[in-house]
C-alpha cells in the first residue's frame, strides 16, 4: 500500500545533511561544551558555529540566539519570562484567539497568577487586525504575542505592523514563528520583534530542539535556573548534536526557501483545486490570497461528516493528514482556530488539514484527492445529516 505523508505542519523528516552533521557529536565529539578540556572545547566550538549559522539565517547576532528543547519551551520562556521580568510595569498581556496551545495555554496559566490577558479576535481568514490591537493595548500592557503563521489554516499575520503598534505603546512584542521559520524569509531586525520562537523539527531539523531569539539589550527573566549555559538564562547541558542538526537544517531550508516554497505551493494548489472541483458542500479554510498563506497549508471543512472518521479512512488508504477536530485527541471541543474564523461548530468537527512537504509529488497529491473523494462519499452515505440538509 502507498504511504503518503501530508502532515508536515506536525513534523518533517530529518534532513540527511543534518543527520550527517549531527553524527560525530554523539560518540566522538561528545564532550560537554562547558568543560574546559579538549573534548569540551570542540563541542563548544560546534555550538558556537551553530549559533552563528542560525543567527545569520534570521538576521540576528549570535548572542541573541538561545537554544531551547522545543518551540513550546521558547514560547513559554518568552511569555512567562517577560511577564515576570516586567511585572512591576504592568500585568496585561495581549495575544490572539488562534495561537498554538504553547502560547494560548501559557497565557491561560498566567491568568491564574493575576495577569490579565486580552485575546484578539481574527477575521474570516484568520487575520489579526492592527486596529484591534490598537484598541486593546493599554498603559499596563507589557507584552503582545501574535503568531507569525497559523499552524492550522496557514494565515501569515502582519507581524511588522503589529510590532510597530506594540512598540509605539511601550509594549514588547513576541512572535511564535514555529510554522514560519524555514517557510518564510524574514529578518528579525526588519520585523522589529523583541522575541521570536522557532522549532527545528518543522524545518527538517531534529526533534527536541528549539530556539528563542531575544533582542540584545532586552532584560529577560531566566527560564531554567542552573548552570551558565545560554548566557546563564537557560541552564542544562547543551544538546550538541541537536544544536548542530538544527543549524544545518535551517541553513539548508533557507538556501532553497523560495524554490521549495514554489514547488510545495504548486502541489498544494493542484490538490486544493481538485478537491474543490470534485467535492461539494465544503469550506476551504484560511486565506484565499496565496501570498498571505503558508505555501504548504490546505485546510477543509467537509459538511455532514466528522473529521476523525475522515482521518482514519485516509489512514487506511495510506494517507497521513491531521484532524482539526479535537475529538481525535479525546476532547469534544472542535478547533478553536476554526471556530474563531466563523466555521459553524458542527462543520468544524469535519475538518482536515493537509500540509505538504518538499518530498511530496504531484502524483501523491492526485492519489490523495482520489482517496479523499471516495472517503467523503462513503462517510456522507453513512451520515444521517447529509440527505436531510441537502
Amino acid at each position, binding site marked *: 500500500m502507498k504511504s503518503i505523508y501530508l502532515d508536515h505542519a506536525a513534523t518533517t523528516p530529518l534532513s540527511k545533511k543534518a543527520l550527517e552533521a549531527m553524527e560525530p557529536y554523539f560518540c566522538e565529539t561528545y564532550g560537554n561544551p562547558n568543560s574546559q578540556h579538549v573534548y569540551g572545547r570542540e563541542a563548544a566550538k560546534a555550538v558556537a558555529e551553530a549559533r552563528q549559522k542560525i543567527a545569520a539565517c534570521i538576521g540576528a547576532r549570535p548572542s541573541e540566539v538561545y537554544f531551547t528543547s522545543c518551540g513550546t519551551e521558547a514560547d513559554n520562556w518568552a511569555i512567562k519570562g517577560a511577564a515576570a521580568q516586567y511585572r512591576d510595569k504592568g500585568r496585561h498581556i495581549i495575544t490572539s484567539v488562534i495561537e498554538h496551545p504553547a502560547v494560548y495555554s501559557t497565557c491561560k496559566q498566567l491568568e491564574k497568577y493575576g495577569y490579565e490577558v486580552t485575546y484578539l479576535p481574527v477575521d474570516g481568514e484568520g487575520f489579526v487586525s492592527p486596529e484591534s490591537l490598537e484598541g486593546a493595548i493599554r498603559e499596563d500592557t507589557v507584552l503582545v504575542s501574535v503568531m507569525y503563521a497559523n499552524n492550522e489554516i496557514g494565515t501569515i499575520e502582519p507581524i511588522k505592523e503589529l510590532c510597530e503598534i506594540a512598540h509605539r505603546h511601550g509594549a514588547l512584542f513576541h512572535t511564535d514563528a514555529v510554522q514560519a521559520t524555514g517557510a518564510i524569509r524574514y529578518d528579525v531586525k526588519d520585523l522589529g520583534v523583541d522575541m521570536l520562537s522557532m522549532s527545528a523539527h518543522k524545518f527538517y531539523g531534529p526533534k527536541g530542539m528549539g530556539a528563542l531569539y531575544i533582542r540584545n539589550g532586552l532584560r529577560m527573566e531566566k527560564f531554567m535556573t542552573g548552570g551558565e549555559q545560554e548566557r546563564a538564562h537557560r541552564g542544562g547541558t547543551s544538546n550538541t548534536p541537536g544544536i548542530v542538526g538544527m543549524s544545518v537544517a535551517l541553513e539548508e531550508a533557507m538556501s532553497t526557501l523560495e524554490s521549495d516554497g514554489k514547488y510545495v505551493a504548486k502541489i498544494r494548489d493542484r490538490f486544493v483545486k481538485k478537491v474543490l472541483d470534485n467535492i461539494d458542500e465544503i469550506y476551504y479554510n484560511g486565506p484565499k490570497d496565496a501570498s498571505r498563506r503558508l505555501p504548504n497549508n490546505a485546510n477543509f471543512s467537509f459538511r*455532514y*461528516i*466528522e473529521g*476523525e*472518521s475522515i482521518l*482514519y479512512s485516509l489512514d*487506511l488508504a495510506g494517507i497521513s493528514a491531521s484532524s482539526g*477536530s479535537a*475529538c*481525535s485527541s*479525546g*476532547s*469534544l471541543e*472542535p478547533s478553536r482556530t476554526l471556530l474563531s474564523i466563523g466555521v459553524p*461548530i*458542527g462543520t468544524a*468537527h469535519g475538518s482536515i488539514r493537509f500540509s505538504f512537504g518538499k518530498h511530496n509529488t504531484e502524483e501523491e497529491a492526485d492519489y490523495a484527492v482520489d482517496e479523499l473523494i471516495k472517503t467523503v462519499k462513503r462517510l456522507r*452515505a*453513512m*451520515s*444521517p*445529516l447529509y440527505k436531510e440538509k441537502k
Partner: protein
Amino acid sequence: MYNEKVMEVFKNPQHMGEVENYNAIGTVGNEVCGDIMRITMRINPDGVIEDAKFKTFGCAAAVASSSTATGMIIGKTIDEALKITNKQVITELEGLPPQKIHCSVLAEDAIRAAIDYYEKNKKN
C-alpha cells in the same frame, strides 16, 4: 488508538443505511458534540426486530459501535434488544478507548429511542 477489531468494523460497517418501511426510528446525540446516531428498525407484530440499519455522523468508534449494536439486535425481540447494554457493544468490539465509551452509550441510547418510538406509535 483503536484496536484491530474496531478498525475492521469501521472499514467495513454492516447494516448501514435506512430500513425501508421502518416502524421504529431513534436519533440520538447532536452535531455540536460531533456524534449523531440514527437507528431504524422494522418490528413485526410479534415484537421481533426483522431488520435494523444505522446512519451515523461521528468518529470511527461511533461508526463501529453503530454497526455492531445494529447487528446485535436483528432477529431479537424488543425485550431482548432493550437488555443490550453499551458494555456488550464494547465487549463485541474487543474494547474502546476510555474517551470513546460514550459512543457505545450512544448506540444503546439509539436502540432504546427507536423502540420507544415504536411503542408510542403502536399505542396511537
